[in-house]
């Protein structure tokens, strides 16, 4: 492998300053579980790497009255074992438990999963249904964008030169809300999703009060369902509605054929995964 400079700092403002001045081709690296693979396959070709995994500002989990802020460099293992996240955002924890293997989860970060912006990133559908906002920082600047606006396409996002993800702010789910994360893969460990979905809803007096639904691995980006929640909100779920909603899946997603799976299969499986969720709540 050629020479590659690794720049690591434990001070956020110092790192942002260096980043702003950087004139060479660079990549941010956190856990490196995507970056190392991309390097090896020559899909990226940076001259230097900026390591954010040592920044304590990026490694905190803060719980507020109605939201949780998770630092971008918190590892998946740490998120999974955090009792408050488990309590208030169980759908994120279920999604992260599906990622890779214990070894991968010990290194992989939430910032990396979103930063990689793959349609198969397992955390992303969960962040969608939790109405996540992405906090972005750069030297002297901060901004915040909705998760669905953050990702532009496969491995493309809104980050500009000098910017890094600082944290994610997600909804705290109420005790009367329920959620699921379901994934179809080929084996139990280290399987990239063929299709997945995150689902969050609340029933009140037998009527659907709220519903968030998103699909992963079935289009160039994670897809937020609009038609299906619309169909249910304010209504009492019944088998007729469920059938109808399942038939809408193929209109909302745009899967492709690749060697992991066929488009046809992905549609069918998502319909089935959705039916499984919906059957649970009526």
């Amino acid at each position, binding site marked *: 492998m050629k020479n590659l400079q690794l720049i690591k700092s434990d001070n956020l403002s110092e790192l942002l300053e260096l980043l702003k001045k950087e004139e060479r081709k660079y990549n941010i690296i956190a856990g490196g579980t995507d970056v190392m*693979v991309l390097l090896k396959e020559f899909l990226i070709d940076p001259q230097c790497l900026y390591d954010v995994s040592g920044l304590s500002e990026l490694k905190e989990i803060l719980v507020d009255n109605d939201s949780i802020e998770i630092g971008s460099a918190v590892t998946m293992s740490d998120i999974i074992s955090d009792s408050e996240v488990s309590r208030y955002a169980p759908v994120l924890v279920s999604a992260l438990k599906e990622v890779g*293997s214990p070894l991968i989860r010990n290194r992989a970060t939430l910032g990396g999963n979103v930063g990689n912006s793959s349609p198969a990133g397992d955390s992303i559908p969960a962040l969608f249904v939790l109405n996540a906002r992405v906090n972005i920082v750069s030297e002297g600047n901060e901004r915040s964008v909705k998760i669905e606006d953050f990702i532009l396409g496969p491995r493309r996002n809104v980050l500009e030169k000098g910017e890094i993800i600082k944290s994610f702010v997600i909804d705290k789910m109420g005790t009367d809300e329920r959620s699921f994360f379901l994934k*179809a893969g*080929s*084996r*139990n*460990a*280290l*399987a990239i999703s*063929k299709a997945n979905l995150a689902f969050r809803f609340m029933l009140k007096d037998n009527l659907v009060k709220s519903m968030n639904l998103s699909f992963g691995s079935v289009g160039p980006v994670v897809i937020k369902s609009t038609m299906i929640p619309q169909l249910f909100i304010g209504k009492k779920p019944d088998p007729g509605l469920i059938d109808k909603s399942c038939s809408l899946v193929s209109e909302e997603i745009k899967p492709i054929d690749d*060697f*992991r*799976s*066929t488009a*046809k*299969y992905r549609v*069918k*499986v998502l319909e*089935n*995964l959705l*039916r*499984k969720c919906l059957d649970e709540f009526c």
Partner: protein
Amino acid sequence: MSKKFKVVKTSVEKVDGYSLVAGRGVFVDDIDLPGMLQIKMLTSPHAHAVIKSINIKKAEALEGVHTIMTHENVPRIPHTTAGQGFPEPSPYDTYTFRRKVRFVGDRVAAVVAETEEIAEEAMKLIEVEYDVLPAVFDPKDAIKEGAPIIHDEEDCYIPIPVAYEPERNLCAHVDVEAGDFDKAYAESDVQVDREYYSHYAQHCPMEPHICIGYPDENDRLVLRVSTQVPFHSRRITAQCTGIPIRKIRVIKPRIGGGFGTKQEVLLEDVVAFAVMRTGRPVRWALTRKEEFISSRTRHPQYVNIKIGANKDGKINAMEMKVLSNTGAYGSHALTVMSNCGSKVLPLYRCKNIRFWGDTAYTNMPVAGAYRGYGATQAAFAMECVISEVAQKIGMDTVEFRKMNHIKSGEGSPIFEKLGEGKEGVPQTIGSCGLAECIEWGEKEIEWGKKNPPSEPHKRRGKGVAILMQGSSVPEIDMGSAFIKMNEDGSFNLLMGATDLGTGSDTVLSQIAAEVLGTTEKFIIPYSSDTDFTPFDVGAYASSTTYLTGSAVLKTAEKVKEQIFGVAQNMGPFKDCSVDEMYLEDAQVKCKTCDKTISFSDICNFAMYAKDQFQIAACESHITHKSPPPFTAHFVEVEVDTMTGKVDLLKYVAPVDCGTPINPILADGQTQGAVVNGISFALTEEYFFNEKGVMLNPDFNNYKILSTVDMPELKTTLIDTYEETGPFGAKSVSEISINGALPAIANAIYDAVGVRINNGPFTPEKVYMAMKELKK
């Protein structure tokens, strides 16, 4: 049946176990020689093309590049890479470098440079102009008239008298018949006729192929090779390079697995040329990607089975038609295909049998030996069809097997008709624990009991497959051993047999210790080095324990006689007859008097006292039979009807391998083979684009099973005694890879009613089969 042993049939510690876990085992790559150069191979981006021109000037000029080899500057010598007995039953269709490339990944030019990085840079500077030819990928298309001819060169040939018609891409053909198949099939009450396809797979040994070569102080060429076949490696290297055998020494150090892919001489010719040209040590190691693309694979095969049976459950007629895809070169092309018949058809009692096998050349990766060796592919088809026949008759699929499977004392016309490149050897089954295997497995899996699924949208099912393999190639393979005695009563055991992680050094030491009345701790095994160890064909065909084990046993017997002879010359045993002497606790003892002499005294006497000589012997062994081990695999699956995912809940594999010389190692072979088989059945798969390029040459995208994917696995060793084997042993290493495809397919059928006739059983495939989807 069972006999009493002291060292054999106990799970002694693996002799190299400690050094391996301590990281002290020395593998090929664990040496670093001063001035060692590195090789990188430029390979073909086209599936089929002629090299119009190749310009290496710029690349040669790069600093750090020592030499570049191409078809223009390396002798063209037809040979096979298959490490088989000589003359090999594989065509001589390979040249160190060739003007025509025949698959994506075929050799074009080897760069020898100071570092791998420089070699890679140089590779980019080589200018190659190709005349791209039409390519053919499916064996069915390859043997059609008008298909592109892959081996149109004039100098390729097969060194034994068998069918070989490269002019129509037919690399091998065999057909044999016993009785009258057509008549018997037509007259049968029930007929089933099905085609199955078994797919590409790679062996995935932890250690990829590697070879380090260097000139020694006498200008002999030393090759350290990760090989299963050091003697074939030496012979084929000599053949390709013109270096006389006496000038080549092949060393096999510790090996990180082979599973058949190292029964190939894949790197040695190029390394040898590189050493000759540079006079420097040279290393060539394949990357995982190269291992997938350019080394060897399992032969993908279409297997068509026809079975005719009577309503009462008797099998009247069986036909197996195999179309095997050997890829661009014909390594093991004939024998893997023949083995489909010879290791699968004899399992069922039947008078009217026909076997028809073709092997086609295609522009695909090159297939070779892979654990199971054809039996894996054929057993998939056979065991699924057997279950279908039973169901058609209305019999339980296990009962049907019990009724028809071969038993001790019975033979099969196939044994006699189908050999390795010639007729086979007639044989009747000696030891056979198949009935016991079935009984044990049935109990363990609770055959006939349908369990409720864990969730409402899931379905459970159970499946079975019964199997046999062989133990070595009769009248062809030879193994030998050399034992000498040391003053402390220990023995050096030198073998050409190659331990590649299998544990054969341990097993063979146990056999020697048993004969010599000592423990394995007093045996110092060494394998293998063509300068020091006697010839052995190598580790393949499930032969080492059975074949080399017998050679070790014979050698130890000879040493024992010499020890008795020495004892008789020593004071205390003057009046004892040899017939009354025996060896125990590292001493010579006598049945009638209670005198003893220690081994140490024996050896010191022989070496230093009188009529001095080295107590030592060397014996060889060939076999006249290839006694099959047997097994019955049972599996319970749960199929998710929403996703098509198949979960294995329990897998049961009792094996009859005769006497297990080391039960834990034998069981380890079974467990490893079962997992290997499950992985092949569920996830392993090559993906190609329309140009013949493999798309997933890495473990990220080529999925092998991991620990968390393991089902509950129950194995056991069924006790039998094979009279022709060393202390009753036969083979164990290959057989259990053959069960997963058919047993799981049968279980999927039991669960959801679909018969899947090609692997792997991915969620998509199972799901789509379940719901014939309209697009």
